[in-house]
């Protein structure tokens, strides 16, 4: 049979406004190609195809036109712009499910502006530009600190845990390790990190501050609540790397690098105070000072450590220092 494409071509030419039938040039072209299909009979059988298609197209165009009006979803162009500048890692640091939910929220409430941790000040500035507002000085970026510094060798174990290799599972069991506060080292935080900024080094979760964006995902998954987000006003930042509230004797028996609550740091510097047998530090107002440095040096178990990109290696506890110096 005749190829259907000719039917359609003819139809299109015939339906063009202002043209009365097929262009002669076109007809003669087909004649030159020695196609003997061009005749009036063909046209009479071809026009229904065109009309049908046109009718179908028209019906659907009207239906969709009505539908697009009735089912219109108003999208704020600003929301779309904000969504474009967001980093699209869907980390949830802002407190929303993902970038798609944060964009409209920040559009409606500029108070939420600085919440995008992976984007940081750059993205905040871009969003502020889109919303045509000024950002006031932002606080220091928050970074996680791990409130434990005990590696496998520093800890005491009553038994060997061979269960599911996950901190949450191990935490459900009493005595997965002697210290009920310290890092379990099964890496729930490592798996939660979308930026590969965490790894477990010899039984202790360790943050790579070069890669960390401060989204806080790790602090949410740690079953022992060891990871807290603190404002990193300085780098390196001084931190108390222990969370044990046991009394000094018990802590010492279980861990070589646990806080024994002796209070030496609090005597050196006002930044520290001891509550529940545990040294606390006021991170928000931390300033590098001689007093703080002295407190760090005095700590008998070396719990006060520097964390950050340029942090020096934490000093070993006094007992071990003495042992190594006599040896």
């Amino acid at each position, binding site marked *: 049979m005749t190829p259907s494409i000719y039917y359609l071509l003819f139809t299109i030419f015939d339906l063009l406004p202002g043209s009365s039938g097929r262009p002669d040039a076109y007809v003669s072209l087909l004649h030159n190609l020695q196609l003997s299909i061009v005749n009036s009979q063909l046209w009479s059988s071809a026009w*229904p195809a065109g009309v*049908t*298609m046109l009718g*179908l197209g028209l019906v659907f165009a009207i*239906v*969709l036109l009505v*539908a697009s009006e009735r*089912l*219109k*979803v108003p999208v704020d162009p600003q929301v779309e712009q904000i969504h474009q500048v967001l980093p699209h890692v869907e980390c949830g640091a802002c407190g929303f499910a993902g970038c798609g939910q944060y964009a409209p929220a920040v559009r409606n409430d500029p108070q939420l502006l600085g919440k995008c941790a992976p984007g940081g000040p750059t993205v905040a500035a871009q969003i502020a530009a889109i919303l045509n507002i000024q950002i006031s000085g932002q606080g220091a970026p928050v970074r996680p600190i791990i409130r434990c510094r005990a590696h496998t060798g520093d800890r005491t174990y009553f038994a060997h845990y061979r269960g599911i290799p996950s901190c949450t599972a191990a935490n459900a069991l009493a005595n997965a390790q002697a210290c009920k506060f310290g890092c379990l080292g099964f890496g729930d935080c490592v798996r939660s990190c979308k930026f590969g900024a965490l790894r477990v080094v010899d039984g202790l979760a360790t943050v790579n501050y070069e890669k960390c964006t401060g989204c806080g995902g790790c602090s949410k998954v740690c079953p022992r609540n060891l990871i807290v987000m603190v404002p990193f006003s300085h780098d390196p930042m001084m931190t108390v790397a222990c969370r044990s509230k046991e009394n000094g004797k018990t802590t010492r028996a279980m861990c070589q690098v646990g806080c024994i609550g002796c209070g030496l740091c609090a005597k050196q510097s006002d930044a520290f105070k001891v509550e529940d047998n545990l040294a606390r530090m006021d991170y928000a107002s931390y300033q590098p000072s001689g007093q703080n440095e002295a407190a760090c040096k005095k700590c008998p178990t070396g719990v006060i450590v520097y964390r950050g990109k340029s942090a020096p290696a934490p000093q070993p506890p006094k007992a071990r220092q003495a042992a190594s110096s006599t040896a």
Partner: protein
Amino acid sequence: MDRFTALLMGFLSVVLVNNFVFTKFLGTCPYLGVSGRIDRAFGMGLAVTFVTALSGTLTWMVDAWVLTPLHLEIARYICYIVIIAGAVQLVEMYVRKFFPSLYDAFGIFLPLISTNCVILGICLFLDVWGTNNLLEAVVISTGTGIGFTVAICIMAAIREELALSDVPEALQGAPITLITAGLLTLAFMGFAGMIK
């Protein structure tokens, strides 16, 4: 009664015996792509069911009342595609308006329903199978969508279990999914011949 039985048989036939996914391997893209979680799979199944029902019925009507009387069978494909694209567009607007989270979850798969071969498949098979009344066309095209929903939901349920199981490293991801799809097809071969 006889007519009702015929309709029921036709329906069961497209859901189980002649399931488009299992026996004709049509619609495999969303079948493997959106079957990660059962709630999304079900949503996808419903969307496809709606589109098959709508476009199957409309194409049958256009075919029976316009194209065949005018001897324009040659224009079937192009008419069907116009109808399917229009129906998908309608579904997309509807989902976007009333189920925004589902719309986000589907992503590119929602507009891709228009290229889902199950849908063009059912429109063309209605003719091949000689469907000769409107009711039959409605029932069979709805059944096709339900068959697709059944397939994608079974697949999603298995894959949710697979996510927690210890799959050998070499088979993780796509390979085990394809093996699962093959085994499911074999299982559904058991229905072959039940309905003539």
